[in-house]
């Protein structure tokens, strides 16, 4: 891929940098300048968006714009337009799926979907083919910065004379337009189907890290481009403060949909950060069973066993069989968090024993759970502190610590992953 502008070879497609075109004169056939190029507008409905309009600064600092159809020739550092063009005054209106490259992409932060991180756009690279200009790559590398400073040739020469084999001369950090997500666009305005699918494939933990680094508007834009499930998975990974702030930015119905998909303990933590009014509004918009579970968790201090626990657990009776337990696990696999312990309770819900997944695998399927169960080594009450819960998990090597109310009835469990992240946060 050529990194410096190349002269066109007949009909071969070639690349040109935005920085080489920006600020250069747009010439008419008689050699007169129609103005200096200050911006371009692309149509994002296609994988490689074509340039639709040019924005020029004409005499007297007036901003004017032209359609791309007026362009007759693209050169590595300039554009030529047809004779007698009449530019329209002002900036072009940006309808749906239209992006201003100077205002919304260049120098802005974007998500590098493949590298799973936030980067800043230093330059853009266009493909010149069949008389059209298509946005192909985003340059996020050091070389792009040097080019923007106008020092590319000088630096290249200096580096070549010192160390011709330098990595610098060959390493252009180009990202395919298809694998980036711009963030500084008005929400809902721009459709980027390919990149959006790629975004959904990112790990929620990576998305969460990016989310934490964004400003409010960018968070809303990014969240809008995620489907509800990915959004919920991502918001489980962000800190409750950030999650709460993001939920406030999106429409209440969508926020409610996301909260329903989230693990109830995480949803409750986020809701606990919101003002009473917003919390009531979102709870009212949520489906009933999920809202009810979350409400119960909200009663507890977020750093107590009650606040940390999830009500989703496998709870069976001693007379049920191993086969019943396995069937239950399969049936509920979707909405269960980390499962290792299966809890056995009597009629009134008091914890009487537990089996581990290992016990289930080793026992015959017809065995009654009561016969293979062990004594629960420990329980914690809902108001137990994080320290107590962590101690219990560490001492008895538990993957999940059962939480009971003051009557000894099982109400939920705290899983080791939640304990771990709380302990790490509190360091």
């Amino acid at each position, binding site marked *: 891929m050529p990194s410096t502008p190349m002269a066109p070879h007949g009909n071969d497609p070639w690349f040109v940098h935005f920085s080489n075109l920006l600020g250069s004169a747009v010439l008419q056939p008689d050699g007169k300048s129609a103005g200096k190029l200050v911006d371009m507008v692309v149509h994002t409905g296609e994988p490689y968006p074509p340039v639709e309009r040019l924005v020029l600064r004409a005499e007297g600092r007036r901003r004017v714009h032209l359609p791309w159809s007026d362009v007759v020739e693209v050169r590595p550092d300039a554009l030529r337009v047809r004779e007698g063009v009449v530019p329209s005054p002002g900036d072009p209106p940006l309808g749906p799926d239209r992006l201003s490259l100077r205002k919304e992409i*260049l*120098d*802005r*932060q974007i998500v590098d979907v493949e590298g799973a*991180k*936030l*980067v*800043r*756009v*230093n330059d853009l690279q266009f493909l010149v083919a069949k008389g059209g200009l298509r946005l192909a790559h985003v340059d*996020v590398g050091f070389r792009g*910065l040097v080019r*923007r*400073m*106008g020092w590319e040739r000088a630096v290249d020469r200096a580096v070549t004379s010192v160390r011709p084999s330098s990595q610098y001369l060959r390493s252009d950090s180009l990202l395919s337009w298809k694998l980036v997500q711009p963030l*500084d666009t008005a929400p809902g305005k721009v459709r980027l189907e390919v990149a959006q699918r790629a975004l959904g494939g990112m790990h929620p933990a990576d998305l969460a890290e990016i989310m934490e680094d964004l*400003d*409010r*508007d*960018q968070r809303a834009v990014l969240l809008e481009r995620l489907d509800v499930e990915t959004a919920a998975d991502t918001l489980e990974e962000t800190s409750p*403060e*950030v999650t709460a*702030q993001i939920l406030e930015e999106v429409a209440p119905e969508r926020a409610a949909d996301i909260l329903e998909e989230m693990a109830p303990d995480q949803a409750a933590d986020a809701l*606990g950060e919101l003002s*009473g009014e917003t*919390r*009531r509004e979102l*709870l009212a918009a949520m489906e009933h069973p999920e809202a*009810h579970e979350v*409400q*119960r968790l*909200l*009663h*507890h*201090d*977020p750093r107590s066993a009650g*606040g940390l626990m999830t009500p989703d657990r496998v709870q069976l009776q001693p007379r049920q069989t191993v086969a019943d337990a396995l069937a239950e696990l399969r049936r509920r696999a979707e909405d269960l968090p980390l499962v290792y312990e299966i809890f056995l309770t009597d009629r009134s819900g008091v914890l009487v024993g537990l089996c581990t997944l290992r016990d289930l695998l080793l026992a015959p399927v017809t065995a009654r759970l009561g016969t293979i169960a062990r004594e629960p080594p420990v329980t914690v009450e809902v108001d137990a502190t994080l320290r107590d819960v962590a101690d219990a998990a560490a001492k008895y090597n538990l993957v999940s610590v059962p939480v009971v*109310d003051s009557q000894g009835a099982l109400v939920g469990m705290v899983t080791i992953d939640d304990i771990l992240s709380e302990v790490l946060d509190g*360091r």
Partner: protein
Amino acid sequence: MAAEPAPARPARGARWRSLLVFLSVVGPGIITANVDNDAGGITTYSLVGAGYGNKLLWTLLPITVALVVVQEMSARMGVMTGKGLADLIRENWGVKATFWVMVALLIADVGNTIAEFSGAAASLQIFSVPPWLSVPLTALAVWLLVLKGTYRSVEKVFLVACVVYLAYPISTFLAKPDWGVVLRATVTPSFEMNSGYVAMLIGTVGTTIAPWMQFYLQSAVVEKGVKPEQYHHSRLDVIVGCIITDVVAFFIIVACSATLFKAGIQVETADQAAQALAPLAGRHASWLFAFGLFNASFFAATILPLATAYYICEAFGWESGIDKKWSEAKEFYGLYTGIVVIGAGVVLIPHLPLLQIMLVTQVVNGVLLPFILVFMLLLVNDPKLMGEHRNGPWFNAIAWVTTAVMILLTGYLVVDAARKLVTGGA
């Protein structure tokens, strides 16, 4: 269990809640204010008090107003846009403007860091610790605190350090100044048309309003995640911070005026000022002064390199933050470590022209400040960025007048310092 919604923490009355909200957003303004009273600040205020007595005290009131105006804009932009100043400059003016602003900021901040380490060395010398020991130890402590401490521990250390500023008022009260004269001088402007007086006046303004503060404050406000609805708490934090800055400055000037100026002792640096206080107000004053100077230097030496690395990375899109691994954020850690090492290393060079370095720093700060103020005013008045939170007509008038005065004063300072650098005289 009951099904009706009940918050985990019962409300304890609106006033208590409002206090809690204030405390949760408090910090950036007050921390910035305390870094502002760094080694350079203490030196300048000591020279003002020792050389001119109470004559320059009146400048503190207009300086406070200017400081509040400028800092309030930074905080407001941070809250409303959610972006740092470096970020906004890059997005609005592109790579070239950003590059030169960052180069100037880096030079100025390295210069400031050198001043902080020489301040730390000077203060520890009062406790008989030689620089070859104190400077590397201070640098190591700074470096470890930021890179090995967690964010919470760092913030706690910073807030405790803020409280230590009580050392200055205590030192002043031990010196027993004539309070009637002091208060009258604070509200009565006086002006002398000689170059020494003008230079002191400009030095006082320049050391109080520095370019890096606007970057630091705005980023810190963004980092805190303050919401627009909570902005009034942030504004209060900024105003309180600015007042603290100038109250501390006031006490330093008064302390030096009541002792050194009255006794006719001329000082050249802050450590001399501290030593000169010892016979007059007992050895406690000297210790307090040295303790305060060390605290100020250490505090600023911790924040300046970190903040500088942070905005440079922000501007160029490199990964930054102390929660990142070294391999993820090479530029960030490289810049941070580089600034600390240069800052501490330069102080250790024997026969170093420290005064010359300080002059260069002042010049670069002075050249940079007008650009930053104009950038800020253009940004804060941009309807697309700020919406209804733009400056009002009156605020704008005050802000532009402040900017114009700052440009005039720093312009004079730059010319004067450049002249001194060329002629080689101090």
